[in-house]
């Protein structure tokens, strides 16, 4: 990998690139899907992608290819350097200063070489166990969209014309189950999952299946409610989507373009004092961890929101320079160049149990699923379809569907008046149960 990348950078230099960086990912992916006990689809793949970013003075361009033949790699350089001559110079464009790059590549235990040894039959058995457990939850679980077990193994390598080189391997494993409950002509689907870097850390297939089954079952009998303005509780999965939206607004590209509702809010109160949001890329074995960012800068821990105050944006070198700030080491690569991505992002746990949060609501909505794309990142205006449970006198009363929840993200974060103690890092973005004092629920 090192030879390929340094050869590419050398060719870019010969073609008059003033600076360049290159990125290579090689991956293998396989999955098995079973449905109602029968094998449906088994897939296996091997892929690679090589990307180059070249600078001609202060102008830059990118090119990538999945073909690593000599001829193709040479064409990649010619295309990136050729395109860079057609783009406009940008005074702040360029690689980070060489001194900023990570001096070591820490081992974050992101690989599980032994975990990949399962035979197809063993993977099928895991998916079957999970689906069977879901179907056995209740006679009303009558159908299934299936269960899937998947694994992915990848190696990332990154090099710059300044001499940085780093590479690291990763593994990931996952299991999802999507059962369907039905009664009186009504059908409801829900799902549950487990997703880890170490196979031994996956939740037991039976537990994943049982939770998925219960989630589908509790939706039976769902109805609309009358339009109202009430307290709304977001379960950990849907609360995580609010945190994801907040991080999106805190990301550099949206800020320098002026397309974010967090523009000019650094250092100000943007959320209730109970809200602290952290991005930590150094957690061993965690799904979002990485030893260096997409520009070779060391990964660390960033406090985005500290007790309600916006303390940091999420920046790569370019967006940082545009805003007059230093990179927060959140650069991420894809074939198209450099963007910004979070690592392990979470809203810190509070002290109230989720039961007590529900118990605190006289009349309101407990949200368990959100659908649609109704977030305006420029204004923070928020309006999404919701599924959940109606809360009456502190208790879950009946399932709800075909309603929307609406507000404005800035106002919603400021109106958080309850933070659960149930934070679990199940995915790259996580949150505990959250209570928002008032939102508009639209129904009939």
């Amino acid at each position: 990998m090192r030879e390929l990348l340094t050869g590419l950078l050398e060719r870019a230099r010969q073609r008059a690139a003033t600076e360049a960086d290159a990125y290579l990912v090689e991956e293998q992916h396989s999955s098995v899907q079973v449905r109602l006990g029968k094998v449906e689809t088994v897939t296996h793949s091997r892929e690679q992608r090589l990307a180059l970013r070249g600078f001609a003075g202060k102008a830059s361009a990118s090119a990538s290819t999945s073909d690593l033949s000599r001829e193709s790699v040479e064409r990649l350089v010619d295309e990136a350097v050729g395109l860079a001559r057609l783009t406009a110079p940008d005074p702040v464009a360029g690689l980070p200063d060489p001194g900023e790059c990570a001096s070591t590549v820490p081992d974050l235990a992101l690989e599980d070489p032994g975990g990949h040894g399962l035979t197809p039959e063993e993977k099928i058995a895991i998916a079957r166990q999970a689906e069977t457990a879901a179907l056995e939850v209740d006679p009303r679980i009558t159908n299934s969209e299936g269960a899937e077990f998947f694994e992915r193994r990848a190696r990332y390598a990154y090099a710059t014309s300044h001499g940085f080189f780093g590479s690291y391997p990763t593994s990931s494993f996952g299991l999802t189950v999507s059962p369907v409950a039905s009664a009186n002509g009504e059908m409801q689907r829900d799902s549950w999952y487990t997703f880890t870097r170490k196979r031994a850390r996956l939740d037991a297939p039976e537990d994943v299946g049982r939770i998925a089954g219960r989630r589908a079952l509790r939706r039976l009998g769902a109805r609309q409610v009358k339009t109202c303005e009430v307290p709304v509780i977001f379960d950990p999965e849907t609360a995580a989507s609010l945190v994801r939206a907040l991080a999106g607004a805190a990301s550099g590209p949206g800020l320098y373009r002026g397309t974010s509702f967090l523009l000019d809010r650094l250092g100000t109160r943007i959320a209730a004092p109970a809200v602290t949001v952290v991005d930590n890329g150094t957690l061993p074995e965690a799904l979002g961890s990485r030893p260096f960012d997409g520009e070779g800068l060391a990964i660390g821990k960033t406090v985005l929101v500290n007790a309600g105050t916006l303390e940091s944006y999420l920046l790569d070198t370019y967006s940082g320079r545009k805003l007059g700030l230093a990179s927060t080491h959140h650069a991420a690569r894809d074939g198209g160049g450099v963007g910004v991505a979070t690592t392990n992002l979470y809203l810190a746990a509070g002290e109230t149990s989720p039961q007590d949060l529900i118990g605190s609501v006289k009349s309101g909505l407990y949200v368990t699923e959100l659908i649609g794309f109704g977030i305006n990142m420029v204004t923070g205006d928020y309006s999404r379809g919701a599924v959940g449970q109606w809360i009456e006198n502190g208790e879950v009363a009946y399932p709800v569907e075909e309603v929307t929840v609406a507000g404005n993200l800035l106002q919603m974060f400021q109106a958080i008046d309850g933070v659960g103690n149930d934070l679990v890092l199940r995915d790259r973005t996580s949150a505990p149960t959250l209570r928002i004092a008032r939102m508009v629920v639209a129904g009939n």
Partner: protein
Amino acid sequence: MNGNMKSLFPMKPSPETQDIARPQRFFEDRFGMTSSLLERLLGSALVGRVEDADLYLEYRVDEELLLEEGAVKKASRHVSQGAGVRAQSGERTGYAHTDDVTLGSLEEAARQARAIAERAASDAVVAVKPDRRPHDLYSLAVTPVAADVSGKVALLRRIDEAARGADPRVRQVIASLSSEEQIILIATASGWTVGDVRPLTRLSVTVIAEQDGRREVGSYGGGGRVPFDFFLEEERWKRFAGTAVKQALLKLRAVEAPAGTLTVVLGPGWPGILLHEAVGHGLEGDFNRKKVSAFAGRIGEPVASPLVTVVDDGTLPNRRGSLNVDDEGTATGRNVLIENGVLRGYMQDRLNARLMGMAPTGNGRRESYAYPPMPRMTNTFMLAGEDDPEDIIRSVPYGLYAVAFSGGQVDITNGKFVFSASEAYLIEDGKLTAPVKGATLIGSGPEVLKRVSRVGRDLSLDEGVGTCGKDGQSVPVGVGLPTIRVDGITVGGTQV
């Protein structure tokens, strides 16, 4: 309908640019994949042991140009190539893919796909050649990826100038142009091969406007399987920029959207996303074979008002959702989904058609060689009715008129769907009054079209911007709608 559609399809392919044999020659010249080699690969590895098998070769070039802050500072070009091998027995699919297009890798992929699928023993039935010939819907003299980059850069600059010049409140203009060419070759075990060369391009304009400390966004764009010059013809680029500016300025004075169940009038074109979410996905064959769709087993039943006829048509020249053949080699068709309110048919790929005892409909699509195909939409729209669009708005005492949407999603199983309005107005006493802020609309797929009480005569298809996601695979699609009135849909605003 014809009157409206003509202006949308100015580029009839000329006979001398048609070249159906090109994909075959391309993969032969570049990778040495002759048809006899492909036949041997599929034959020796797969025939006789599985019911159906195919090989999908793909070569794709993508180019992206992005203008922000008045300059084109980002440009990128990507090449992807690879092959997917599929073997099927009963409900079982084995799929293996590789980005190494060599005989050795393909043999290995075929071996893996077969091993996966052949565990279910069954009588071998090899796929038969479809009887429909591929269409010729988008042969271009100069494809969008081949067009000169400096002309594209110049167009993006003109868009920036036009948008900024339109109003002093415009603060930021982000314009992007993506161009793509996909060359595919599909070979099946019965020895026939079919290929396609698919150009695709899209221009997007986003504008941020600011007034008195309030900032708002407007977006517009379009494209299709058309050459780069499409954007210059009829000054489309100027209209896209102007519409984005208009939308951002309108939203600067938008009031809170109402919350609750309202009469909603949908404008023509892109609001056809209603059909895509409310009924389209629910009529895809896989969900119905598995009986997890709210529409499962309901063919022949009324699912919409008698005013409603919905078709999915992959044969419209130069449209974003059109295909000469689908990604299994089946020629696309014009498939009636709902006829005068009655459910008529599903959209099928080969697997689900075979398992349901139906015919493939040319809807087997995949994002790339990295994925097995599944039933997907092409261009989905409602046929025109007889009402005057102005009359439809005049007929509403209080409601919402929505003309632009930012996206939608559906839960196939309970049928609930959402789509989010990004440009909408209040209707008061039959007149459009204040623009309202964005709001999500939610409804029930099998119910919402029963409430369609007026259908306009102004059918139009969208400008060519739609991308549909399903199970992690994205494919370009089109939608279309005449102006319609829906008597009751939940609007997710904040004004109680």
